[in-house]
C-alpha cells in the first residue's frame, strides 16, 4: 500500500477550563481519539455542529493548537514532537485557509507582500522569482496581476478569500486545511470559490481537509466525509456512502437538517431536540445518546467503538446493524 500523505492516530486535544487558584477546574476533550488517513489529492470533509471540535482538530494537525496526545504524520514524518525549526520547514507542506477573509489578511501589507511573505520566510527563490511567482499565484486564483500592488481593503469578500487561497498555495503545500472557507461569503460568490477549489484540487493534486457545515458544498467537493460530535468521530466514509447510506443516527439527522432547495418538504426527517451537551461533562456511554431518537438503556452503558462496516465506512453506534437510516 502506498503511504498516506496524512496519518492521524488517536489524536487528543484537551483544554483546561475553570482552573483558578482554588479550583482544580475540569478538562474539555475537544478532540478525543481521532484517527484517519488522507491520501495525496484526496479531499476530505469534516462536518459537525459548532462545538464538535472540527476547527480544533484542523488546527491541531498543523500544530497551530498543540495536541495533547496521539500522533500526526505528514509524508511519514511525525509532526507532533517536531522541533520548532523542523516544524517551520514542515509548514511549507501544510497550510490553512481561514473562514474570515477580512480578519486573516494583514491590512498594512500589499497583496504582493502577503503572497511573497511565506516565500521569503521559507527562503524560496530570488526577489525576481518571487515577483513572477506572485503574478502566477494571482492568475491561479483568478485575480489580475495588478492586484499585487493593492491592499486587502480594496477587495470584496470573495476576492479576499481568493487572496487567502493564493497565500496558502504560495509555498506549494501538499496539504491544506480549509476552515469554513466559503461560510462567510454570499451565495453567488460562494459558488465561485467552490469552483476555484474544485479546479485547484484537480490541477495541483492537493489534499484538502475541508471543514464546513454546508452539506451540499461538502458533497460536491469532497471524496470522503468525517462526522464529528463532541470531539469524537461518529461516522466516516465515502461521500456516496455517507449521503446515500448513512449508518449513524447523527449523520442522518445532519443530512435531514440541511436546508434543501426543494419545494416539497420532506416528512420523514429525523429531527434532533435540544443542543450539544456541555463538553465539560459529556454523557456516559455513547455521547450522542441524549439527543438520539434510537437510544436504548445499553447506549448509556457502553462507549460504542468505531467499527468498520463495509469498504471505507466506519460507524460508532451499537445499533448500526439493526436500524435502517437510508433516506427514503
Amino acid at each position, binding site marked *: 500500500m502506498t503511504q498516506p500523505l496524512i496519518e492521524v492516530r488517536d489524536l487528543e486535544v484537551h483544554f483546561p477550563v475553570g482552573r483558578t487558584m482554588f479550583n482544580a477546574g475540569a478538562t474539555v476533550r475537544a478532540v478525543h481519539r481521532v484517527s484517519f488517513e488522507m491520501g495525496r489529492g484526496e479531499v476530505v470533509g469534516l462536518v459537525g*455542529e*459548532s462545538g464538535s471540535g472540527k476547527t480544533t482538530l484542523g488546527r491541531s494537525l498543523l500544530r497551530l493548537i498543540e495536541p495533547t496526545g496521539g500522533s500526526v504524520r505528514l509524508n511519514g514524518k511525525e509532526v507532533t514532537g517536531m522541533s520548532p525549526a523542523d516544524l517551520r520547514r514542515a509548514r511549507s507542506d501544510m497550510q490553512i485557509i481561514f473562514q474570515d477573509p477580512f480578519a486573516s489578511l494583514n491590512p498594512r501589507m500589499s497583496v504582493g507582500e502577503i503572497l511573497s511573505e511565506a516565500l521569503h520566510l521559507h527562503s524560496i527563490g530570488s526577489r525576481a522569482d518571487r515577483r513572477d511567482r506572485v503574478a502566477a499565484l494571482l492568475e491561479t486564483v483568478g485575480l489580475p496581476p495588478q492586484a499585487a500592488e493593492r491592499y486587502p481593503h480594496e477587495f*470584496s469578500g*470573495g*476576492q479576499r478569500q481568493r487572496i487567502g487561497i493564493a497565500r496558502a498555495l504560495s509555498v506549494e503545500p501538499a496539504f491544506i486545511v480549509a476552515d469554513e472557507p466559503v461560510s462567510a461569503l*454570499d*451565495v*453567488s*460568490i*460562494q*459558488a*465561485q470559490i*467552490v*469552483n476555484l477549489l*474544485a*479546479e485547484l484540487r484537480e490541477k495541483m493534486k492537493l489534499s484538502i481537509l475541508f471543514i464546513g*457545515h454546508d*452539506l*451540499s*458544498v461538502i*458533497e*460536491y*467537493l469532497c471524496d470522503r466525509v468525517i462526522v464529528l460530535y463532541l470531539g469524537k468521530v461518529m461516522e466516516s466514509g465515502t*461521500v*456516496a456512502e455517507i*449521503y*446515500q447510506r448513512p449508518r449513524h443516527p447523527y449523520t442522518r*439527522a*445532519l443530512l*435531514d*437538517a*440541511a*436546508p*434543501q*432547495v*426543494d*419545494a416539497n*418538504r420532506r416528512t420523514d*426527517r429525523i*429531527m*434532533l*431536540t435540544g*443542543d*450539544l451537551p456541555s463538553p465539560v461533562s459529556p454523557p456516559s456511554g455513547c455521547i450522542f445518546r441524549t439527543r438520539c431518537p434510537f437510544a436504548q438503556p445499553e447506549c448509556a452503558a457502553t462507549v460504542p467503538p468505531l467499527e468498520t462496516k463495509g469498504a471505507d465506512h466506519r460507524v460508532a453506534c451499537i445499533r448500526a446493524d439493526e436500524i435502517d437510516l437510508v433516506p427514503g
Partner: protein
Amino acid sequence: MSAKLLDIRDLVVEFRTEAGLLRAVKGVDLSIAAGETLALVGESGSGKSVTSLSTMRLIPEGVGRIAGGEILFRGRDGTVRDLVHLPGREMAGIRGSEIAMVFQEPMTSLNPAHRIGAQIAEAARLHEGLGRKAARARAVEMLKLVDIPEPERRAEAYPHQLSGGMRQRVMIAIALVCNPTLLIADEPTTALDSTVQLQILVLLRRLQDELGMAILFITHNLGVVAEIADRVAVMYGGRIVEDAPMAEILTAPRHPYTRGLLASVPRTDHAARAAGRRDRLQAIPGSMVDPLKPPPGCDFAPRCAWAQEACTAAVPVLEGVASGHHARCRRWREIV
C-alpha cells in the same frame, strides 16, 4: 386572497455616507396578506434588511431616511395607515405590539444583565399593561409556547446561560408576547447550526398555525426559503427583481439572477459522480453591485449572461409573467 396586511409602495430609502448619497432601496413594491409568509431573499447589499427596518421605522435618523413611497399597514382595528408618515408616538404603539421583529443575533438583542423571564415580562407590561404578577405568568406561558423545557426554572436564567437556539426562542417569545399580526424575522437562523435552524423554522411554522400572524422572513438561504415561505420576493441592488409563489421561484424562475442563485447551490449528480465527473457550478460571475456606483439600466446587467445593449439603457420594469409572478427582466419570455 384576503386583504393586504402590509402594502409597501415604491419605497425609496437613502443613506448619507462619506462617499456620497447611497440609495439602498430604489422603489420597492411588496405586499403581505394576513397569515402569509413572504420570504425576502437577497445577498449582502441587496436592500432586504433596509426594507424591513423601514417597515419598523428603525432607519437611524440623520444617517438615513425614507425618501419616498408608502408603507400601508392595516391595524387590528381595521384602519389602514401609512407608517412612513406616522407620528413617532403612534409608531411606537404599533412597534412591538402589532409588528414585532426578531433579529439574527439574539445575544445583542437581549439584555445580558436581566433574567430572560423579566425581559419577556417587561414586554408584556409595556405593551399589554399587565401587572407584575400577570406579566410574570405570561412570561412563563410564552416560554412554554416556544418549547423551552422547564419554563419556570428557565425564566430565572440569564441570556449567557442559554444556547444560541434557546436565546432565539426567547427572542421569538418576546416578539410574540403581544400577539402581533406581522412578525419580521431578519435572518433569525443564520447564526445557528442547521440542526437548530430546522427546530426554529418548524417552531415558527407551528406558531404561525396557532397564532395566525403573517411573517416577513428575510434570508439569503434558498433552502430556508423552501422550508418556510408561501411567497418569495428576490432583491438585487435595492430593487425587487422577481416575486412569485415559493414553488414557482424554485422550479420556474424567470429572472437570470434568481436562476443564478439557484444554480449556485451545489446539487450533486450521483450518476455523474460515480462516472468520475464533477461538473462546475454555474456561478454568477463578478461581484455585488456597488450601491454608490450603480450601473446604468438593469443593476444585474454587468453580471448577466443574457444582457444586451438595451439592458443598460433603462431600468427594466417589473412585468407580470404569470398569475402572482413578476420579473424585472426585458428578456423573461426567452428565459425558461
